């Protein structure tokens, strides 16, 4: 997550968009195995609907990982074969006392 390769798409707005999406779902909660499925679904749905409202001709892939804090390590990497001038991605890390959350958006231009 050291480099963002961005075309014209997401830009600075996406960071805060994703952040608020996560905060609205997870803010103030502790990790719970029973709820985590519902949380991740809510986060991706919220982020996706916000992205659609921007109204740009893009296809979106939104992924969300929520991990309990136990001292274990997690590594994530992505590799994309696309048009670097038009397509881009954005990743946001969020954490609280009991869990980590990583949300990534990949935006692929249509035509």
């Amino acid at each position, binding site marked *: 997550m*050291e*480099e963002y*390769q961005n075309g014209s798409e997401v830009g600075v707005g996406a960071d805060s968009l994703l952040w608020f999406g996560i905060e609205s779902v997870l803010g103030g909660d502790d*990790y719970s*195995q029973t709820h*985590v*499925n519902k*949380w*991740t*679904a809510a*986060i*991706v*749905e919220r982020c*996706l609907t916000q*992205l*659609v409202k921007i109204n740009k*001709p893009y*296809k*979106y*892939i*939104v*992924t*969300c*990982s*929520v*991990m*309990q*804090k*136990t*001292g*274990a*390590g*997690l*590594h*994530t*990497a*992505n*590799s*994309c*074969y*696309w*048009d*670097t*001038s*038009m*397509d881009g*991605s954005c990743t946001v890390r969020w954490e609280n006392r009991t869990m980590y959350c990583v949300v*990534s958006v*990949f935006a*692929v*231009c*249509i*035509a």
Partner: protein
Amino acid sequence: MSEQPKEKPPKAEKKVKLPAEGPRAKEKAGRIKDPASTHVDEHVTHEDPTASLIPNTYQLSPNKPFPITTISHILKEEITHRLRDVRYDPVRSREMTLTLCEVIRTRMKEFMISRYKTVILVHIGQLNGQGLQISSRCLWDPNFDTFVSHSFKNTSLFCSATVYGIYFE
């Protein structure tokens, strides 16, 4: 671990125009474009910018569908081969995620799947009794766009790899 509800993209008005230069490996005329240079890790591979623009083909759907079974097989093979007896190590796992991404992307390029853009996601984590949930949702055309996923686990680590194939009109 991951779920995939799919939605159709909103209808957008399209104008006929020359398509932008894209990562097309093979065109109808039979030209094959090679990337100018390829690096591992953090470098971007660019197509030759002086290549001529391609005329509109008026093609609405892909000639060949995204080869799901082949890619699933590739994922299984690569991950098992590289991680079978490996113990979790922070430094090595970090490098391994990047290596796996690059390797999968290279193998996918060999298939010359025309008009498909790909996004490859790899997670490697330590097994420590923690809970983890990975989900994704996509706004795309469910007729042509798809994904393939594979997970792997040994005594000390787990790995999850996903390849998304997006049709480029």
